[in-house]
């Protein structure tokens, strides 16, 4: 049984987003932290590795669609314990929306072959649509299991998982193959180990392009016609004075009622 983990490289959680007047966006980390594995994907990578450790998966293959620099995210996945990593990169993939991304990921999963479980994060911290997992499931024709907080059993051609929903938990069983998206309650991701980092840095990561995957015209159905920053919130300060603390407190309470704060 092969497991695929789809991971995106994103800015670090401490990076600041700047939206320029022309609608272009950039992320800059004030501490100079490099881009990272999408933090939500650390849970999926961990779960993929655990499927190998606990449920007999033979391979755990990390896939990323992105530019050359996304190799670093794949190296992190390898350092944590994925057995293989493949970069999906081609000029034709640039500017893809989630549907385009799903098309590429689905083609790659099919090309890997014999995959029973494809694991995704809840969402990417930059794009943050949370659509890629289900759209990939649709492209593959597999069952999507979203918000998974535990994989309780895998075997006999099926999988049982726990889904964490707003109002409670749900246990569901579905026939393999499936697409899973994970939530952070599912596990505690491990750190890449020192030995893992050494091994990963020596690994050569294969790159699959549009030709290898037999996809063309990825593009984008979504048009981002206007991207703008929210206007800065305006505030003003008013100092409440009075002769005594009691008087000041009374004035403050009256004011809070007046402004309908309480």
């Amino acid at each position, binding site marked *: 049984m092969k497991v695929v983990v789809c991971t995106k490289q994103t800015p670090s959680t401490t990076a600041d987003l700047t939206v320029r007047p022309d609608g272009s966006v950039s992320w800059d980390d004030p501490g100079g932290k490099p881009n990272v594995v999408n933090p939500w994907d650390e849970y999926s990578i961990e779960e993929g590795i655990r499927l190998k450790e606990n449920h007999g998966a033979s391979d755990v293959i990390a896939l990323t669609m992105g530019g050359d620099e996304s190799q670093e995210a794949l*190296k992190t996945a390898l350092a944590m314990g994925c057995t293989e990593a493949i970069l999906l990169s081609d000029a034709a993939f640039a500017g893809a929306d989630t549907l385009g991304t799903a098309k590429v990921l689905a083609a790659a999963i099919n090309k890997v072959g014999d995959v029973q479980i494809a694991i995704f994060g809840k969402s990417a911290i930059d794009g943050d649509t949370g659509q890629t997992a289900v759209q990939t499931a649709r492209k593959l024709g597999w069952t999507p299991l979203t918000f998974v907080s535990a994989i309780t059993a895998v075997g006999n051609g099926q999988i049982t998982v726990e889904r964490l929903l707003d109002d409670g938990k749900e246990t569901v069983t579905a026939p393999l193959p499936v697409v899973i998206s994970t939530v952070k309650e599912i596990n505690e991701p491990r*750190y890449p*180990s020192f*030995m893992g*980092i050494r091994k990963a*840095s020596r690994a050569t990561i294969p790159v699959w392009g549009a030709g290898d995957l037999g996809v063309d015209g990825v593009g984008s159905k979504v048009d981002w016609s206007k991207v703008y920053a929210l206007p800065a919130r305006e505030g003003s300060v008013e100092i409440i004075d009075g002769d005594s603390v009691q008087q000041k407190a009374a004035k403050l309470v009256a004011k809070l009622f007046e402004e309908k704060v309480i």
Partner: protein
Amino acid sequence: MSSIYFNAEHEAFRQMVRKFVETEINPHVEEWEAAGIFPAHQLFKKMGNLGLLGLTYPEEYGGGGVDYWYQTILMEEIGKADAAGPPLGIAVQTDMATPALAENGSDTLKREYLAPAIAGDLVAAIAISEPGAGSDVAGIKTWARRDGGDYLINGSKMWITNGTQADFLCLLARTSDERGFRGMSLFVVPTQAAGFSVSRKLDKLGHRSSDTAILAFDDVRVPEANRIGPEGMGFILQMRQFQRERLAGTLMGVSGMEKMIRRTITYCRERETFGQPLIDNQYIHFRIAELLTEVEALRQLAYHCVRLYIAGEDVTKEVSMAKLKGGRLSREVADTCLQFHGGMGYVEEYPMARYFRDSRLMSVGGGADEIMLGIIAKYEDILPRRKKA
């Protein structure tokens, strides 16, 4: 930060250690400082699992088998932790209590103690200083007397970091009446041995989350096989071991200083007096520029030591210079940064006060500034000639 010293693999390693410090150390610092101890077994096991405790040691004992640049990164990153106690305990494990064992211990001794120390299963401590002898290492009074095939150890050790939690000590003791340094040997002493006891934990100015203890030895029996290297070589081996201790200490010190200066810059940008940010005062930004220059110069001296060490050269003089400068500079940095924080530098709810306390150790621990000056003077052959009696 890319540099000519570090490649992409180093950088990935640095990010991993940084994250480890931010998630496994920093969130617990307040609790550990208040408790006067950090849980070494728990923390070291996590580090051992990641391969962090034996980076430069041979792979056959579970080490990483890599050069000291990796250890440099480890020391730099842990040196930025929110308190200096846990980093000191870690450095004792990796750079102060185990180098002599790794270099000169027998295979059996290494399998029994070094391998589990690298795995994080055993906590190590270095036991050199005594109530009556700190700077004057040759003046120690703890004895290891031969008794059959064993040694019986009697005496007391003071200021021992990790002292209340250690599973074994790398201990220096006298083994003969020969005066001075020739009569000493280095031993691995398991702390569960009968006759060993922790006299008490010391209440200190800084490094409060690190347990520092006085240890007592009353006929503690250790087999001859626990001796590191030949009998009578202990002082020499320890002098060599000190070089790594001092190098590691300097590297931690440099990154700690830089972190504090950068914190001060942020503070001085935000804090306004007389209608302008503090940083706009020429006195302040010039002072900060000056300190950053000194820190950078020290870092380069430390990196020079790393290169010499990796090349197998004698680093004693250069490391002593780096340790001396590190001790002096960290006092200056702590004092200046505290000053620019005003009252905020003086309260415990802000990290400055702790840094001020913690930074003071570097001029005392691991050989005081004056001892470093003595070593440098000796290497330069400018010590006064011994007078004839």
